């Protein structure tokens, strides 16, 4: 059976290889290849949050009341999330119960299972008035609907306890000042990923690791969307999502295009068919959150970046960019975003493998020129995070 799987994968590989949009270089179109990296001293660009400093939004810089920090959300979503009208930014904060040396075990520092490890709390900054208010202790991960409704996860307790499941509800506020309405029927390990129109896409972690994606059609109305899958991006129209199934959950990992309305699969790209142009080998993993504009999405991969073309329910590979540092352990890109609607340039962050993860840098990649500019390194502890909302759809 395994031979059959490999044979099928090989066929798919050939088919997908033929579907890659191979276009010539010359700065007017994108082609797959190895991106040259130029190290610069440039400051990070785009909308970012770095501790208390919020930069790059059209409303100008702002200083938040507390530093943005989201260790529980991690790479699964943004630390700070702007509302669609640009008036608000919801941002994650975190306060540790005590200083922890993470190279040492918790037990050796007197921390036992069940001891408070820290306290998450979302805050909402009104960029017009400067008001900066907490949504409640134990809240984390946020997404704004086009009409201004705000969804997030609300812990059943304010404390995150060491080595203990942190259960939370999915709640929605009509406005930041309105009372929260609980959408989940029971607390679980929820993380809000984004709105798809008026439906809410949520990650539900499983007790043993791994996660499913679920959809809330409204209060107390949850259904499965994709099991054993991670969100890559939400369609700007809110109709579809791109999800990843990686090798930890399936021997045939793939990118899947799924209709949010009914969960049916519209397209599938096996990773075996996404070939790194430098190594000539299939990529081994993909990760989100990525960015989806019009009919194009960018996601990070085990060797750099992949740009996908999505149209009419069909999914194809537009470009595979190999970046040397991203193919090394610990060097994968985080949260790649197109810098504008031309989708010409991609900005992403990565930890620098040579620093063993102690330093990070921003990479700005011109995907037509196949070149990236690496910013001056910053300590990972203080690395900026991009400010964005993964949500899509106008309703």
């Amino acid at each position: 059976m395994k031979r059959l799987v490999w044979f099928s994968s090989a066929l798919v590989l050939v088919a997908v290889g033929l579907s890659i949009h191979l276009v010539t270089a010359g700065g007017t179109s994108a082609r797959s290849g190895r991106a040259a990296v130029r190290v610069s001293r440039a400051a990070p660009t785009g909308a970012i949050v770095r501790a208390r400093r919020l930069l790059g939004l059209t409303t100008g810089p702002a200083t938040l009341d507390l530093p943005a920090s989201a260790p529980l959300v991690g790479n699964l979503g943004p630390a700070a999330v702007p509302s669609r009208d640009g008036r608000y930014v919801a941002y994650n904060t975190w306060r540790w119960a005590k200083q922890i040396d993470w190279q040492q075990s918790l037990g050796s520092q007197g921390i036992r299972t069940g001891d408070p490890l820290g306290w998450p709390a979302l805050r909402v900054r009104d960029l017009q008035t400067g008001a900066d208010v907490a949504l409640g202790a134990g809240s984390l991960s946020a997404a704004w609907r086009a009409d201004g409704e705000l969804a997030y996860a609300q812990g059943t307790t304010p404390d995150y306890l060491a080595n203990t499941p942190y259960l939370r509800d999915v709640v929605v506020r009509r406005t930041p000042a309105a009372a929260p309405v609980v959408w989940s029927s029971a607390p679980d390990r929820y993380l809000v990923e984004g709105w798809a129109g008026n439906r809410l896409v949520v990650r539900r972690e499983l007790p043993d690791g791994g996660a499913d994606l679920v959809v809330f059609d409204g209060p107390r109305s949850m259904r499965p969307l994709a099991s054993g899958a991670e969100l890559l991006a939400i369609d700007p129209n809110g109709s579809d999502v791109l999800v990843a199934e990686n090798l930890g959950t399936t021997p045939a990992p793939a990118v899947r295009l799924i209709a949010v309305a009914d969960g049916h699969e519209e397209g599938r790209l096996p990773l075996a068919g996404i070939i790194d142009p430098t190594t000539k080998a299939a990529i081994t993993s993909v990760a989100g959150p990525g960015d989806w504009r019009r009919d194009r999405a960018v996601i990070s991969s085990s060797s750099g970046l992949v740009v996908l073309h999505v149209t009419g329910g069909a999914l194809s590979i537009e470009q595979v960019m190999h970046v040397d540092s991203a193919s090394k352990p610990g060097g994968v890109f985080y949260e790649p975003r197109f810098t504008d609607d031309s989708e010409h340039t991609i900005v992403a962050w990565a930890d620098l493998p040579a620093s063993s993860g102690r330093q990070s840098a921003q990479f700005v990649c011109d995907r037509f020129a196949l070149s990236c500019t690496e910013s001056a390194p910053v300590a990972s502890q203080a690395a900026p995070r991009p400010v964005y909302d993964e949500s899509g759809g106008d309703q």
Partner: protein
Amino acid sequence: MTARIAILALVTAFVCVSPAQAATNVFFAFHRSTNTNSYLTINREDTFSGKILSQQGFRAGSGSSTNECQTGVGWLPTGWYDIVGHFDNYNGSLIKGRVWQLSDKRCNGGTGTLRTQLFIHSEETSDQGQYCPTSGDDPFCWEGTSDYYSDGCIKLAHAQPYPSDIAKADNDWDAWDGRHGYFTSVTSVFVS
């Protein structure tokens, strides 16, 4: 009188603790190499001298990406962990059978994602058997090398020749430590 009571208490405490428990310590060491071909050892050391008295090593896997900050995908972050529990018949939704649960760990030496729900486990049923109903990949059936991939945990093989690696590690644990359930005193795992 007080001194006599103190000495008596000290002697009683010493007698009540078996020599093996008092003098030795069990820990795991996991050396990352690739997602499907890394190395895990279980070790029994002399508590006072640190000398390794017994050791057994196994091929082991971790994650499906070498980025330790990727929740659910990346391999285990480096550093020391506590083993907070050991179970012979764990019955989770994705993980079953013989497992060791590890403590939470923040990646990149404490600068990134807080990784949670971490285990050492295999692909087996809660009664330590194999459930292979299909000719494809079954979650509680060890089919081969690709099973070393995980959602970010450490995986040992449940493969012939028996005893399998997960069984050998469990046998060593039972012989050298023997605790089951959740622990109040911690045992360590070192990931490098």
